[in-house]
């Protein structure tokens, strides 16, 4: 059964159309004047666009960017090659080959170091589990960088030297969490010889 829908009633001003046009023009001219005569990004401008390649939105402080390996004060990686990160990694993009220090090195028998540390940034899903898993604060994602584009797959395989060369967003290669070397007064004294 057909249902009759009554036409909406219009007031005389609405039917005359011209006052309604004036109302519409008020809105559009308002936008036009605000956006034309105030700088983009200023308080009065309504334009939210960021002109991307020329201007970049600032990433938040906790943005998970490209990984970096943090350094000790002597410039060696903090990583002790415990394989926690590569175990935690759901994408299995971290490859570590651990190695022992020389026999006369004081760290020998105390900890290992990564001979090979490779991250396949194409496989990485940037979940941050590796950072959470690391007991030494050796791998971080606070570089503030996203992966730069490239047409070659090899460019996305980051080796140890590459990862160590990437600084944090503040430019530092270390981390704010101090490391307690054996022999330091802050060291809790838990090594293999129970010193």
């Amino acid at each position, binding site marked *: 059964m057909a249902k009759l829908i009554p036409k909406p009633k219009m007031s005389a001003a609405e039917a005359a159309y*011209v006052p309604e*046009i004036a109302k*519409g*023009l008020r*809105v*559009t*001219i308002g*936008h*036009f004047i605000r*956006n*034309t005569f105030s700088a*983009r990004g200023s308080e009065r401008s*309504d*334009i*939210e*666009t960021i*002109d991307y390649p020329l201007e970049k939105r600032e990433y938040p402080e906790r943005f998970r960017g490209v990984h970096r390996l943090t350094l000790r004060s002597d410039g060696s990686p903090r990583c002790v090659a415990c394989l926690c990160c590569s175990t935690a990694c759901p994408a299995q993009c971290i490859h570590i080959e651990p190695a022992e220090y020389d026999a006369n090195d004081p760290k020998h028998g105390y900890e290992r170091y990564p001979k090979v540390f490779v991250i396949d940034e194409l496989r990485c899903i940037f979940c941050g589990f590796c950072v959470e898993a690391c007991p030494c604060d050796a791998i971080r994602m606070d570089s503030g960088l996203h992966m730069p584009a490239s047409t070659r797959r090899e460019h996305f395989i980051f080796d140890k030297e590459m990862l160590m060369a990437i600084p944090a967003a503040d430019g530092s290669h270390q981390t704010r969490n101090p490391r307690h070397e054996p022999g330091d007064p802050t060291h809790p004294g838990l090594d293999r010889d129970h010193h």
Partner: protein
Amino acid sequence: METFQVAALIGKLIFVVGVILLFSPLMAWADRKQSAMIQDRMGPNKASVTLGGKKISLGGLLHPLADAVKFMWKENFIPPEGDKLLHALGPLISIIPTFAAFGVIPFGGMIYLDHLFDVLPAAPGGPAFPFQVASLNVGVLYVFAVTGTGVVGAAIAGYCSNNKYALLGGLRAAGQMVSYEVTLGLSLVGCFMLYNTLLLEDMVQWQHDRGLLGWGIFRQPLAFILFYVGSIAETKRVPFDLPEGESELAAGYFMEYSGMKFGMFMMGEYVATVVTCCLLTTIFFGGWSLPLLHADGFHLFGATLQLNHLIVSIIGVLTFLIKTSLLCWFTLMIRWSLPRFRYDQVMKLCWRYMLPLSLLNILVTGIVVLLWGN
């Protein structure tokens, strides 16, 4: 014809062609940039030239240039089943009338060559010419006659494309333009009676003699609204762009056009907008006349700031161009503020509201002119 007249004619032609060639890419730019500003976008800003290692984009002003280059290099597609000759004629027929209409528009007042560098006396003499290409005694009727042929271009373009959408678009264009031609002409009859002339330059003089309140928009406000609406419909711009209504007709009558031929349609539309804004300026906004500016300088509170004839003439031409630009701006504002009509609404608006109103305007103006004179 004397030498100075030939030289003046060539100069005026160069000026008019310059105005057209300047205004149509500017309109294309303004259309895009202005819509961006209205819709909180950034608009065209990428086309740039590199000068001395610095990228210069001029706020997108170079985009019309890039468009022109693109138009020239695009494939000139002609529908295989379409009519080749008519397909080529369509854009020409629709663009040439709009160019021709510029011929009678007065960009400035009379220019007296002997008095260029001194204050114009009350009774100037010597060689003189008006700042308009041709002063025809049919005046504004010539504009209607010429722009009326523009409908043929749109109809032909729709007919020769061998495309149902294009044909429907051509039909809509023809129906709409012929209908609004009637209102357009009748809405101005009141002005003719008031100004007592058909000559555009005399209309400007009439308004100039009566100062700001003598402008047509204050003497004939209804005629202004009717003529403005009619002229938007005549140039097939939003909200009257049914001939190219992309939601139902893809692109309407110029659907099968590409490259420079499409560019000509687009340019024709912009030039037509400029020409109607020129007409509006001339008939309703006092043309080249600036309030308080007289032939010998500014008059204010009985004091006179005397100016050279040349400077007064230049101010006049600039006044005309600025008024026209403001009207073009307003037309674009309307274009980006209103949604498109339905086709029956377009026809109803024309025949049931605007036509009776324009007849009423003629009646009332006639009575007023008879009783009180103009």
